[in-house]
Structure formats: structure tokens, C-alpha cells
């Protein structure tokens, strides 16, 4: 199950979706929004996606996992829109016969999502806002 949604995510059915009687290990990652960022209080967040490409990239990442590891069961849910503090923005659930692969693959998926999937996060503070990761684009910023 791979989905991009603007509704609150319930991780329970996502974890359940990867369980089966040949799997001895299930690893579920939740990405949750934090109260503070770089010492400042975050009021809320906005996530934006290039949805069709993001879905395609998520499916590619799931395929990478089933290619690289003896794993059949990968579920990824990403939330977009306005999120409050402590909301779940991302759920990745992976199950495998043995635990090592489930841990590795779950960490890998989360990393790949942050690298390649066109979903952006804006943190809104009392005195401003910031698209996370776009520091290189700040006016007057040095090029990387």
C-alpha cells in the first residue's frame, strides 16, 4: 500500500498490511512533526507534493527494496497539507522473515524518500516561515 493523503494517518492498518505468517519481523517508522526547529517554536507545518511524480518515486523505492532484500511487504503513507505539531507525516512499514533486513530496508526507504521524492515541508513560525532544505535558495545565500 503506497499512498499520499491529506488526511490524518492511522499507522495501525499500515503496519498490519505487511504482516504475514512468513514474516518474523515488522519495522514501522513514523515521522512526526517537532515543536522546535533550529531553536524556534514551530506553529504548524505545510507539506506539498508533486503528487503523481511522488507516487511514482515511492513505488520505485518500494521496488528497490524488493530487489535488494528478500522482502515482499512494503507500505508507505505520506501525508500532505497542513499538519499540527506531533502529527504523523510519514509511515513506512516493512516486514521480512528476519529482523535484520526489515531494519535495514526501513531505514533505507526513509532515507530515499528524503532524497528523491518531490514532497516539500514548510515550517511556519511566529515571525516567518521556511521551506526546509531550501537554505541554498535564500536571498543572498552563497551557492553550495
Amino acid at each position, binding site marked *: 500500500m503506497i499512498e499520499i493523503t491529506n488526511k490524518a494517518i492511522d499507522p495501525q492498518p499500515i503496519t498490519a498490511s505487511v504482516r504475514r505468517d512468513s514474516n518474523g519481523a515488522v519495522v514501522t517508522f513514523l*515521522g512526526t512533526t517537532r515543536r522546535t526547529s533550529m531553536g524556534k517554536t514551530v506553529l504548524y507545518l505545510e507539506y*506539498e*507534493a*508533486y503528487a*503523481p*511524480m511522488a507516487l*511514482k518515486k515511492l513505488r520505485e523505492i518500494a521496488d528497490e527494496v524488493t530487489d*535488494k*532484500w528478500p522482502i515482499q511487504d512494503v507500505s508507505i503513507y505520506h501525508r500532505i497539507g497542513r499538519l499540527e505539531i506531533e502529527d504523523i507525516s510519514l509511515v513506512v512499514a516493512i516486514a521480512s522473515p528476519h529482523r*535484520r*533486513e526489515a531494519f*535495514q530496508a526501513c*531505514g*533505507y526507504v526513509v*532515507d*530515499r524518500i*528524503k*532524497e*528523491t*521524492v*518531490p*514532497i*516539500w*515541508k*514548510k515550517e511556519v513560525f511566529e515571525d516567518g516561515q521556511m*521551506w*526546509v*532544505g*531550501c537554505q*541554498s*535558495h*535564500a*536571498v*543572498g*545565500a552563497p*551557492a*553550495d
Partner: protein
Amino acid sequence: MRVTVRFFALYRERVGASERSWELPEPATLADLLEEIRNAYPGLAPPDVEIVAAVNEEYAEASLALREGDEVALIPPVSGGGIGFADEILHSASLRSE
């Protein structure tokens, strides 16, 4: 030819629109289009910062030849968040499977 240009996140805010139809002389590469866009919106990105783009939902090289009807999306840096360790995981996985 005519292509659709989509702007997301920081770029959407800086352009003030999420999508624009763009007329280009043929032949044109992605680099040509990006140069036109930078000229039209000088505040989009600092001059020495690369603008990453996708054509028809796939990351594309600047040398790619554009075609009528292409959907070009400008992709600001994605959210990142912490130090990645995908490479390390893969390295460790491949060591194990030897």
C-alpha cells in the same frame, strides 16, 4: 512548441503561480527553458544555484530535448531532514550477503 511548467513549494510562492504554459522556439532543451524561466523570474533562485527539474515526472538532465506537450516541473530541494545513511545501509547489506 508549447510545454507546461509546474512550480512547487518555494518556486510556486516565488513565481506566484503553480503552473504556466510556456511557448518555446524549436528545438529547445531543458536548459533553454530553464534559462528563459530564470530571465522571466530573476528572483526564483540565486544565479549559481542549479534548478532541478523533472520532465514528464522523471528527473531530467539539462541537455534533454523538450517536445510539444511536455510537463516540466521545477523541483526545489526536498525536505531532507537529518543525515542520510542509505549508502551505509547498502554497504553493510552487501558486506553481509558476500
